[in-house]
């Protein structure tokens, strides 16, 4: 049977598309407060254990009013020795199934930065009070002489998939600092939603 359409949304495209880019937070208005327990309350929406003070706050601009933020740290050693991690309300991809979303996500994650990419480990995990998916990957760029190790954790907020990810860049002959990944794990494991998302209230 033919279904009637109540409304049609026409989205007109332009030829160029903008991807998200990260900038260090410069706004004077602080979007968080500290709880007596030492956790951060972010815009009265999230609660989490912050990283040590040598990590700088990052806001990620997506242009589509989604909530993204994270932290970054300059590591000892030559360029590009840095580590950053983030919470992403709308990670790349569309699917609400973790396996599908992971496939969609890695089509674009680090897309412009690496030439060789491999999944080191992928497993189910518990996150945000429910089931999730965790993937550890490594990318190498022999032309630039750089490599990156990343871990991505997908979880659910209502019907939608949200993501956490950490990326650690090193020169090709550099060593990864896995203690940063432990800090990331503590951040992820402590993360709580304090209220329903916009999409859950519709």
């Amino acid at each position, binding site marked *: 049977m033919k279904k009637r359409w109540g409304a049609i949304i026409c*989205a007109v495209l332009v030829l160029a598309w*903008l991807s998200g880019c990260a900038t260090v937070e410069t706004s004077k208005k602080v979007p968080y407060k500290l709880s007596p327990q030492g956790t951060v309350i972010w815009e009265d929406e999230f609660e989490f254990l912050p990283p040590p003070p040598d990590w700088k706050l990052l806001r990620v601009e997506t242009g589509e009013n989604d909530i993204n933020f994270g932290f970054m740290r300059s590591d000892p050693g030559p360029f590009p020795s840095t580590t950053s991690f983030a919470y992403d309300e709308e990670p*790349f991809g569309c699917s609400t199934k973790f396996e599908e979303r992971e496939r969609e996500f890695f089509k674009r994650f680090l897309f412009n930065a690496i030439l060789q990419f491999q999944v080191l480990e992928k497993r189910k995990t518990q996150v945000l009070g429910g089931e999730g998916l965790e993937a550890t990957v490594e990318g190498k760029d022999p032309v630039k002489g750089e490599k990156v190790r990343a871990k991505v954790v997908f979880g659910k907020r209502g019907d*939608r998939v949200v993501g956490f990810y950490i990326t650690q860049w090193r020169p090709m002959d550099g060593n990864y600092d896995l203690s940063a990944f432990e800090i990331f794990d503590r951040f992820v494991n402590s993360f709580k939603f304090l209220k329903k998302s916009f999409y859950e209230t519709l």
Partner: protein
Amino acid sequence: MEGHQRNLYLYERFNARVLGVSRDDVTTLKYWAKSLDLTFPLLSNITAFLGASFDIQPEGQPIFGRRTVIIDKKGVIRYVRDGSPDFKDILLFLKKLTQEGGKP
């Protein structure tokens, strides 16, 4: 477009459908839709008559501006916004449209 794809289940709830319109050719749009795993229709309008009728083709330029338009079940344009789509605004408008007109 990825944002629209993520929101398809919510558009379904509000009895709405999404169409993308572009001046790109069909082959280009097929590859583009595949790369983003888009499942809703993309219309190739290489002659640009849709852009002209929606008044979003800058004079003397070969591209469309970016505009989101919501048309109700009677064919009346109810919502027009330029620039990147504000998905939350779109969803709130669709919810309002559903509430004001009963089940569209």
